[in-house]
């Protein structure tokens, strides 16, 4: 398989390798994600019922209350946070959340290239994402 490499902008530095969890919808961390379980609880969300823990969480951008930044911090402190965040366009709520939670984050990525279940490497020093292994689906 030819390895796919995507280039974006660094928001928070770091490096990791994990399974991708991809959404086509914006995520509101306040009210949308349960800070005590890491589960997505927003009804009608395409990731409803899934857990963000240890995933490379890919979604277009955040929305909703700025308190959402603190939810990301809580998730990370409780070891329920994503390993990395990949956005189409970073917004202040998620960017600030990733900064204070120290979660590697890259934006300006065409997230449609990534599918849930893909194993990806996020190099958030260089702003590069490599899809190492396509998922089953």
């Amino acid at each position, binding site marked *: 398989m030819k390895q796919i490499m995507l280039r974006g902008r660094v*928001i*928070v530095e770091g490096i990791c390798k994990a399974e991708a969890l991809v959404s086509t919808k914006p995520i509101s961390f*306040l009210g949308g994600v349960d*800070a005590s379980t890491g589960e997505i609880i927003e009804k009608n969300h395409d990731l409803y019922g899934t857990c963000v823990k240890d995933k490379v969480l890919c979604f277009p951008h955040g929305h909703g*209350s*700025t*308190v959402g*930044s*603190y*939810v990301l*911090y*809580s998730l990370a*402190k409780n070891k329920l946070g994503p390993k990395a965040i990949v956005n189409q366009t*970073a917004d*202040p*709520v998620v*960017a*600030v959340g990733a*900064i*204070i939670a120290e979660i590697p984050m890259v934006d300006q990525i065409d997230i449609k290239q990534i599918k849930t279940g893909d194993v990806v490497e996020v190099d958030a020093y260089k702003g590069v994402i490599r899809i190492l292994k396509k998922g089953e689906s």
Partner: protein
Amino acid sequence: MYLTKEEERIYDGEAGWANQVCMKILVRLGELFNATRLIPIESAHVSGVSYKTIGDAPSEFLEALASSGGKVNVEATLNPQSVDPKYLRKRLPESAIEKQLKIVRQFEKMSFTQSLTCTPYYLKKPKRGSHISWAESSAVVYANSILGAWTNREGGPSALAAAIIGKTPDYGVHNAENREPNILVKVEALLRNETEYGALGILLGKILGDKIPIIQDLKNASKEYLKQLGAALASTGMTNMFYCNYSHVKTKMKEIQKISVEAKDIKESIESLSTAPTPKPDLVFIGCPHCSINEIKQIANLIGDRKVKDGTEFWVCTSRFVKEKAKKYVERIEKSGAHVLTDTCAVVTWTDRLGIKTLMTNSAKTAHYAPMLNKAETALAPLKECLKTALKG
């Protein structure tokens, strides 16, 4: 973004973790919005204080910040919390109150002023033309539009970071060219009271998005009426300022888009915000945003010798500062059986736990949020009608 040597040292962690994380927030946000540098601010106002609104998530971050030496660098005030010092504290569950007080203690450790109000401008008015970093959208619109101080619409964390660093990135309405109006709103109706001004705000917020309007024909409006307009405007839209006269504006009126609002639009806006036109609401609430001294005085005078009806709660919400200043009028209001509550308001406290299912208010902002945040049916009507409903005789 350009950083001074000192800013770089803070960014690299030489001034400790609390300062470093705050500097990172400001710099990264600045980069997102193409800021060129950080500019000093005169004050910061932080939202995300009410435990009911924010829940458990922020406590850990605030604690980490406070215990690693985070301290404010400029005058920094706090938005309302979920309880007042007396009345509600007796009536709400202890565990929730304890969590609320813990949040405020963290802010106290970092030397925030315990203003606990959404109207920090009544405590201290920022200077015209000064740069400030305020969260609380109603205060942002008031500062930009009525006081002429310059602030973006900050979120809780970015205002907190600005308070600790004493600076903000120079994007958005910190630049004069981004403060020019780009739409003209002609109001073809005579607005008669604060509720109609609020209803106009709700309506415009939905149409304008983040545009900056000149709203024509409001020249004689009181500051309190414009406060209602701005609070409502920010509830439904992303607008962070409006103009009500042309004198400071460079834009040529001929060149911008125009819309008009008619009396029937205002009427419809009020109707859409009234879900429960009940004659006997559980709570009548005045003070969103928090009352000014003038408003307290007006309420006292309108109440006269009348008493609150049995079975009805009547709350007037304001800051500690205004309550103290308006003591004489507060006493007269409280004699009626009404409660003058400080540090909180109906929207940020647990009205549902007090058994309140219907709420009447003169504030369009409250009427907009209460069905969601208070799980209450609402009736929106001007002060005089609210008083008529709350009082005997």
